């Protein structure tokens, strides 16, 4: 790890100014991802700007019963907040399915949005990797990719975004709020992550030096929601596949549905094709299966992650089926 300086600004604007004035600096939140990457040389900042003392640690319910979550709120606090548990169950479940208790105590909302991929090549500076070292190649394509993306990847990078929390935020149509040197910006989560294309090193549309200040979530749809994650051990593992979904059934038909997938794509993946295929259809296993198949029709698995196609398809069907039962359909 390279030597670095550490600063702890007291105001958002001060943090952004510091960051803009020092190209080699990075924001430090819980440090559970950034510090790990520093230890293995993937990140080599010369200054860390601690953003946990900027008053961004509150969760508020908005007037219309939506949420405003400060960027420095810990994953643990967010998961157990009463309003989250009651109205945004999938968000609470998604967070609690991630990492471990100790990590969730440290990890923040802002850091979770910006955590980097767990691709093994990305984490080893002696190896090529387009995301870490643009133009050096993507060895995962021909190498180890059993937990890599089946949707939305390009031949430049096939890595997944590892977050569970963001899969739920996708389903809830959240918006990311940030502060840039030229003022505040709001970015809908659906626009927050870039398609991989030939720039896998550019992961988000967040303007340069911007500090994420919070996330807003519109009022929860009148539906029950759920997050289900499959992983290689019962705890403390990233998703091999996960589904966040919310379903409203009226008179036996799908009135509203939100589906997002984790462990599937270069970023948490909104399953819009499946959603469109379901609207107005009977809330039956048959419809769910057709919609899931439609979503996964564009999946492009590699030799060692083929299993994910059936896994995600069956997970979508299973989760929607459970929600339909809950809704009394």
């Amino acid at each position: 790890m390279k030597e670095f300086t550490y600063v702890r600004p007291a105001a958002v604007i001060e943090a952004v100014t510091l960051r803009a004035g020092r190209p080699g600096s990075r924001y430090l939140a819980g440090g559970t991802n950034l510090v790990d990457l520093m230890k293995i040389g993937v990140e080599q900042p010369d200054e860390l700007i601690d953003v946990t003392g900027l008053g961004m640690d509150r969760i508020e319910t908005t007037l219309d019963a939506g949420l405003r979550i400060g960027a420095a709120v810990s994953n643990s606090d967010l998961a157990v907040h009463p309003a989250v548990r009651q109205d945004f169950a999938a968000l609470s479940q998604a967070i609690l399915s991630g990492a471990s208790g100790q990590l969730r105590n440290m990890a923040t909302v802002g850091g979770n949005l910006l955590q980097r991929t767990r691709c093994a090549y990305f984490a080893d500076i002696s190896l090529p990797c387009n995301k870490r070292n643009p133009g050096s190649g993507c060895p995962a394509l021909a190498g180890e990719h059993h937990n890599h993306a089946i949707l939305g990847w390009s031949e430049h990078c096939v890595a997944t975004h590892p977050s569970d929390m963001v899969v739920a935020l996708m389903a809830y149509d959240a918006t990311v709020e940030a502060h840039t040197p030229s003022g505040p910006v709001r970015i809908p989560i659906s626009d927050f992550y870039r398609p991989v294309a030939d720039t896998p090193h550019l992961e988000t549309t967040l303007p340069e030096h911007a500090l994420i200040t919070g996330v807003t979530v519109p009022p929860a749809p009148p539906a029950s929601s759920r997050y289900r994650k499959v992983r290689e051990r019962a705890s403390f593992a990233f998703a091999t596949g996960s589904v966040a979904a919310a379903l409203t059934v009226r008179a036996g038909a799908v009135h509203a549905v939100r589906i997002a997938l984790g462990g599937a794509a270069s970023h948490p993946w909104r399953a819009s094709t499946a959603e469109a295929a379901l609207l107005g259809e009977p809330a039956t296993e048959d419809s769910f299966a057709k919609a899931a198949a439609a979503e996964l029709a564009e999946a492009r698995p590699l030799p060692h992650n083929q299993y994910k196609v059936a896994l995600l398809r069956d997970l979508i069907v299973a989760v929607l089926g459970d929600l339909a039962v809950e809704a009394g359909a």
Partner: protein
Amino acid sequence: MTAVGSGRTRLEGHDKVTGAARYAGDVPADGLLHGWPVLATIPRGRITGIDTSAVQAMPGVVAVLHHGNSPRLVEGAGWTDADPNLQLLQDDRIPYAGWPVALVVAETFEQARAAAMALPVKYHAQPWDVTFSAAHPGLYTPDEVNLHQPSETAHGDLDAGLSASAVVLDRTYTTPEEHHNAMEPHAAIAQWVGGRLEVVDSNQGSYAVAQDLAKLFALDLSQVRVRSEHVGGGFGSKATTRPPAVLAAMAATVLCRPVRVVLTRRHMFSLVGYRPPTSQRIRLGAAPDGRLLAYEHLTATQTATTFEYVEPAGVVGKVMYAADALRIGHRVVRLDVPIPKWMRGPGEAPGAFALESAMDELAEKCGIDPIDLRIRNEPAVAPGSGRPFTSRNVVACYLEGAKRFGWYERDPRPGIRREGRWWLGTGMGAATYPGETAPATAAATAEIDGTVTIRITAADIGTGARTALAQIAADALSLPVEWIRMRIADSDFGPAILAGHSFGTASWGLAVDEACKALRARTTGTPTEPITVQVNTAELIQAMGRPERHAFGAQFAEVAVDVLSGEVRVRRLLGVYAIGRVVNPLTARSQLVGGMVWGLSMALHEEAVRDPAFGGHLNANLAGYHYAANADVPDIEVGWVDDPDLANPTGIKGAGEIGIVGVAAAIANAVWHATGIRHRNLPITPARVLATPPEGPRA
């Protein structure tokens, strides 16, 4: 009431939980320096340049040792065999990715790490091969497997046996490369004190480490002292001298200051041994009643180019079942990979996965209950040697286990039990591990305050050995345990066998018992000045010969499998063992539970991954290398049956290794019982479960 047989918390338990116990990486020293090994990033080739000037000026850097400037080491050091992993920084050759090419020494740990990461090392790479397969053209038959056992064992006419068999099973089972991750990483601190090289090291046997260091540095053994008072897990990875002790001693010698070297997890993946992958072909031929006419177990495995370690997966067959014809063989291929070595239950752990899975498949084919099949094939003598067992109480384990587990209420048909999305099943497997005894020196001192001090170069690697030895001493002296002071893990106490191969407590226990008896013969009551007697059990053990003495066990598992998601959850594990005399039921139980947890981990999680294009590991850390997390581990029940066996007068057989043996098979067999699908390749991951969906309605 005797101390042996009563449950006792660890003598050092309070020190450990309060942090007072100092492990090798905690030992303070004035002027301490920190060494960080820099690892090769290519699997084969030569170092063509190390630009030390690039880091020499970095903050805190004191030295960069490499093959061009480091002290020359004497060749041939190593326990039982010369260990090339100890010839550190001696030449420019790279035998595998992860081989140390330099040691950066700095004033702080962080400075050493920063400079190590910045050190430019240039290589000339040569073509490499790191990919094991059972079809590898480089496979050959070694003369010996682990610890100089014969590679091949055979009797009877195998082909005739197979052709006379009504039922023939021919299956191949694979286990992946698995790695050590003891809670405490390997660490050592070395310094010269009054003309002696003093090392505090994390190891399983300080005497052998002292011998190695003396040899490497051309010192008299009396000039070296190695201690390892507290060790946070070893499991074979600390059985022999490891690079931290050598590197710390090299740097301390060059720099005349105390030097500490602590490995990271990544370092551990290449420097402390591991369980090599195996591919095991088993052919069983049986009469219609399940009696074995032919038994063949052929193992293929990998070793390094620099050392021939052969995982002895076939040795289970020399102990477990009677068969008219027997053939056990091993083949090995040398690859450009780190040196594999002992890992809990070496041989038996992967071997029993294959054998005990095959026995379950044979039971299915013959339509016989798996326990009945095993009982039908109980041998009268050891199948490998034809010699009698000193004791064999495996059937008692089966029966006691079956009773506790509710085995006989089980419907043998696979794939018929559901609970929501979960498919349920149960399975069992047998376990065995040698119960050997090796020489040790022990001293007992009658102190003037009435207490007795025991000195022995035993290692307590978390097993509770220190406490068990105090219990043995207390009984031998008819004193309360509180009156015994245990001093262990100091090479100055004389030669003693290391903590490994499950012979630690049996071997040290015998020496302590002998020493205490000898002391008793010399003195009764409290002496006016300390009286010490020292014994060595070498002759006694020579006279005992090497009888067929083995521990046994039966493992039972209940699993739930979600065939849509591929998730496997173990709901229940039970192990019942015949392990001779149990000195301390509390710590013995912990050891066995630990072994069973590891068996679960082996069944479902553990697998090191490399990319043949680069040759190094891709998951050399605890986030990427999955082992069972707490949430994976269910209620575990442990029991033991009476197993009197005084071939070692202490009656102890050892509980260290056997807990892991047979667990993976019990789980795989339970997965079959749940789903009707046989999983012959470990680990049984969601991807593997999904790749072979069961037949019939899935939900």
